[in-house]
Each structure stands twice: as structure tokens, then as C-alpha cells.
């Protein structure tokens, strides 16, 4: 089985790099994007289908939040892991609805890893279910 592709969208390199390195040591292939524009470039590239996108939705401009909406609409195979502060969750509560941040910042690397594993396991279960209810071979 090939390594899962994780895309981290994070503007602070001093936060992004250690987290990315930790996840690489955990066995994932990790791509890094500094903002929503870079993330879109990566998501549009067929060569690197993204299994999980970790994105900080606390950015003031809301571009990352728009990005999560785009991914939900256009990349069903990509699971989302939203990060933010409690202040973000409170402010965006109305809009976010089901999109409340699940990961608090500053990042706890092990917690991020556990959430990624959970998302990938859920997706694998979904794939098995789809196969079971799908074509008969």
C-alpha cells in the first residue's frame, strides 16, 4: 500500500516544518502549502492526490475556510482536519456548523497524528463498505 498523502496548509514555517517532519517520521508523505492558493495548486495536480488536508481555518481573511468548502465540494476523496483556536471556533460558530475546528493550536503533534489515523481508518472502512455494496465480481 502506498503512503498516504497529507497536505498541511500553514502560514508559519516555524510551526509547519516541525509538524511536517514529525508526520514524515510517522510514515506519511507530507506536502506543505503556505496558503490557500498554494493548496489549490497542489489539489489540482493529479500526481499527488491528497488523502488528508490539515488546514488552519483561523486565518483572518477566510481564504482557508473557503478552501475547505471547495475541497468538500470538489475533492470527496480528501478528508479534512481543521485546526484553529477556541477564539476562531467561537467567532465562526454560526458559519462553521459542522466545520468546527477539531485540532487546537498550538499543535500537539501526537494529537494531529492520531486524528489523521482516525480519518484514514474511517475512509478505509467506507471504501470497504462501498465495495461490499457495489459491483458483484
Amino acid at each position, binding site marked *: 500500500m502506498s503512503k498516504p498523502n497529507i497536505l498541511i496548509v500553514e502560514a508559519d*514555517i516555524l510551526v509547519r*516544518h516541525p509538524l511536517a*517532519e514529525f508526520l514524515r517520521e510517522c510514515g506519511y508523505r507530507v*506536502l*506543505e502549502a*503556505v496558503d490557500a492558493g498554494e493548496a489549490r*495548486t497542489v489539489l489540482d495536480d493529479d500526481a499527488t492526490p491528497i488523502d488528508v488536508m490539515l488546514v488552519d481555518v483561523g486565518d483572518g481573511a477566510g481564504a482557508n475556510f473557503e478552501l475547505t468548502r471547495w475541497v468538500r465540494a470538489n475533492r470527496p476523496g480528501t478528508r479534512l482536519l481543521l485546526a484553529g483556536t477556541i477564539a476562531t471556533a467561537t467567532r465562526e460558530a454560526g458559519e462553521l456548523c459542522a466545520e468546527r475546528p477539531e485540532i487546537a493550536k498550538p499543535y500537539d503533534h501526537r494529537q494531529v497524528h492520531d486524528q489523521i489515523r482516525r480519518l484514514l481508518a474511517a475512509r478505509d472502512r467506507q471504501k470497504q463498505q462501498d465495495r461490499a455494496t457495489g459491483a458483484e465480481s
Partner: protein
Amino acid sequence: MPGRHTILIVEDEPLLRFDLAHELRMHGFDVVEAARAAEAIAVLEARDLPVALLCTDVQMPGEMDGLDLVRWTLDHRPDVIAAVTSGSAAAIASALTLCRSGLVFPKPAHAADLARAFQRVLGEASPSSDSSVA
């Protein structure tokens, strides 16, 4: 990671950046990926990571381009070897006057060629002793 040299790459095109980082990791380097000169400076100023070599593109968004970044590095971190990539012949000419290393690569450049060149240059030096990785 002890025993491995750390290379800081600066490239605003994410797919090119990813390809170069991947190739360098396959060649045994630890890589820090920066998208802007300001990010590279943040890493070099923090001094958490033992950066042995900086490889930067020239044209990037932000106030500083890659040549500005090389000048900054020569002033503030002369211990770091500077390498430059660019698609502009004028930028390449400027880089050749700046980079003592001679590591100047016109684009399109093969990531494997860069990796081999860096191995040759860094193979002559041992990894930095202050190798506490953040």
C-alpha cells in the same frame, strides 16, 4: 536527524518545491521548505535547525527576491552555503557574482543534478555539531 545535512530550499511554485525537496530527501538530506524569502530568514534567524546550504529561486512574491536573500545570508549567516536557481539570464549573471560557491543553476534544472552538486559540496564538510533538531 544526526548525520544528515540540512538544506533550506526557497521556491514559490509549490509543485517544483515539493519535487526538489523529495529528490534531496532521497539523496540523504534533511530539507526545510520555504515559499518566500521571509520564511527562509525566519528559519535562519531562529537557528534551531543546522542549515548547511540555502538553495533559492530568484523571483518570488514578497519584498525580497532570492538575490536579496543571498545578500542577507552572506551578511548574517556566512556559514551557510548559498545556491541559486533562476529562469532569468540576468538573474543568473547576478547570482554568479554573488555566490562564492558557484552553485548557480539555470532553470529548468533537474532536481537530481542539484542533489548531486550539493552532495559534492557538502560531502567535503561534516554535518554541523549543533544538530538539535526542532
